[in-house]
């Protein structure tokens, strides 16, 4: 747990572009909210590897959002059922349903449809929100913490040693 928190801090405190970290969190939200073995997650994996997003942030985000998804299951089901039962979409979904490749995506499953809909709707707002939070964190909180006496004391703790250890192993990113 300590190491996980240390990893998160490491990512936040690194010189990585805030956009790379935010995008990783957003992709993690999509993969974490939706059932992991869905076909669209292959596309997410492809984009994660192809685009320069922070992989550590993605893995941490995936763990967080997967755990959180369990609580949101009833919401995903309701949203998915509403979407799939919507009359204006009926013809489109019927056409997709009759296409074998679209059937592989399990789009007609209420959890898949609901979680994908919600994570897609939240993708862009969350990207900017995470970006903003990271920038603000680095500008104000990180600097203030670094200079505080508490931090000086903290640097001598085991937690900080773990954080340092990871930083060394990662080549001081």
């Amino acid at each position: 747990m300590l190491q996980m928190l240390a990893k998160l801090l490491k990512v936040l405190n690194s010189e990585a572009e805030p956009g790379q970290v935010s995008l990783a969190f957003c992709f993690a939200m999509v993969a974490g909210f939706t059932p992991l073995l869905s076909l669209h997650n292959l596309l997410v994996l492809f984009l994660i590897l192809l685009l320069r997003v922070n992989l550590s942030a993605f893995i941490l985000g995936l763990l967080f959002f997967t755990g959180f998804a369990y609580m949101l299951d009833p919401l995903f089901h309701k949203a998915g059922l509403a979407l799939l039962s919507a009359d204006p979409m009926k013809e489109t979904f019927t056409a997709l349903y009759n296409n074998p490749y679209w059937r592989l995506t399990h789009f007609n499953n209420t959890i898949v449809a609901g979680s994908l809909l919600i994570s897609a709707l939240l993708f862009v707002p969350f990207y900017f929100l995470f970006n903003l939070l990271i920038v603000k964190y680095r500008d104000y909180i990180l600097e203030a913490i670094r200079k505080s006496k508490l931090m000086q004391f903290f640097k001598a703790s085991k937690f900080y040693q773990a954080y340092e250890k990871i930083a060394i192993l990662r080549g001081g990113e």
Partner: protein
Amino acid sequence: MKMIRWQGLVSFIIISGLIAGAWLFLIDGIIERSIEFVGTKAVGAKVDLKKADLSLSPLGLTLEGLEVTDPDEPMKNMVEVAHTSFLMDFGHLLHGKAIVDEMTLDGVRTGTERKKSGAVKGAAVEKATAKEGASSGDTFSFPSMDIPDPKEILAREELETLKLVDIIRADIKNGKSQWKERIDGLPDSKKLKEYKARFKEAKKGLKGGVLGILGGAGELKALKADIKKDINSIKTARKDLKSEIANLKSRVAQVKAMPKKDLRRLKEKYSLSSGGLSNFSRMLFGGKIAEWTDTAFAWHEKLKPVIEKAMEEKPATAKEQKSERGKGINVRFREFKPMPDYLVKLAKVSADITAGKVSGEIKEISSDQTIRNLPTTFNFSGDKLEGIGSLSIDGEVNRLDVSTPKNKVNMKIAGYALKDVVLSEGADFPVSLSKADSDFSLKASLIKGVLDADFDGRFNSVSLSGGDKDGDGHLKKSLYEALSDIRGFSLKVALDGTREDYKVRLSSNIDNVLKKAVGSIVKKESAKLQQGLKSAITEKVNGPISKLAGDIGGLNVFDKQLSSQLGDLEGLLSGGSSKSGSKSGLKGLLPF
């Protein structure tokens, strides 16, 4: 900043390649275990598969050594299929539907031995409980061919006559004590003396002046009223007693007619009537037919869960389904070309039976027959079989109307050589069909659990045998002789009803042959038994019946007693001589 990470693309290709490689490497094992798991769950007993092999181009599956355990006999396989192969439609498979155009099943065998038990915990208990509840419809047993000794019959049988005698005797005994009690409550000699004393006192008063006369007259009037009241009580009691005696006499008369009824009942029970012989074929073949019917029902019960599970109704709309946590529900949309979840359009089957190879086809094995509006049909035939001239079986499993499940089968077998078939195993009359050439047809349907079957058979070159012809009595000897002379017979069987309660109607020309052969012996033996029973019953019931008359006579004593008491009181009232010798009475003493 560069947006693209090219080494990431390489990583993706490598990861995807590894996943695809692992899938190809593991898929055969996954299919094998999936078939075993799903099969075991559906059958309720272990399903084993030696090998599964998936080919991608063309997409197909080959299964080797499929063994399905018999849930009722875990050391036997219900079905064993040596080799199964089929091609699947890739497009439909992506839809999650297994559509097979043609399937081949080779080396199908039933009832093969297993090396290890195929029992599954829990399922076996359920099956055993279900089996206990099931029972065959009619049971068949041979009547005894020995004419028993009448005295032995009476030793173990209760006679209705004697039962009635005991009841009447108890009633008489009870009646006697009741009458004794009632007579004790009526005026007796003591009361008579009291009346006489009152009479004397009243007479004295008549001599004592005007007041005395008036007082004496009043007393005499009261005395007369009391005596009249007592006389009436005794008369009523006497009337009741006479009525009771008459009733008992009538019941005794009924008892005298009872031995005839006992005789008829015992004769029917212990003699072999010609009516029984007219249904000899039922006794001879009935047991075997019940056994075969139970086997057919048992097979239907075994296959039922597999068929029913495959054709389970699915909820029509998404709202009717219940969302499972973490899984959601799959909403179904209209399909342009609807197909059931699985469909085998044609299965070519080659089965190995003891007589040889039987081959055939099964069409439209489907999870939902209503989609293509076609029932599952099958036909099998064999013509180079050992001991069977030709065999053909066809039928259908129809679930087009889900509320009325229909199963039909027609079977025709010609030139079937029967050998050493035990028809009756009982020690009383064992019969075996040593050999016969048979041709028969069977038409059966099971609609909503109700069986309707017709069997029509012709048996030629027959040899029936059984029992010790020399050691048995007349009747058995004649029956065995008649049976051994039979060279051919026909048999018609009609069955209808449910598994728990079915009726069998059976007819054969064998009945007439046997009736003719042993009819006169049966009549003679029956007459002999009747005579013996009549004498034995008479001997047993005569004593108790005559004793009953004596017991009723005991009630006449009360009548005499009542008559005497009545005479005394009437004598006192009339002034005539009474039994006690009094010559003076009330008559003439009163002016009113």
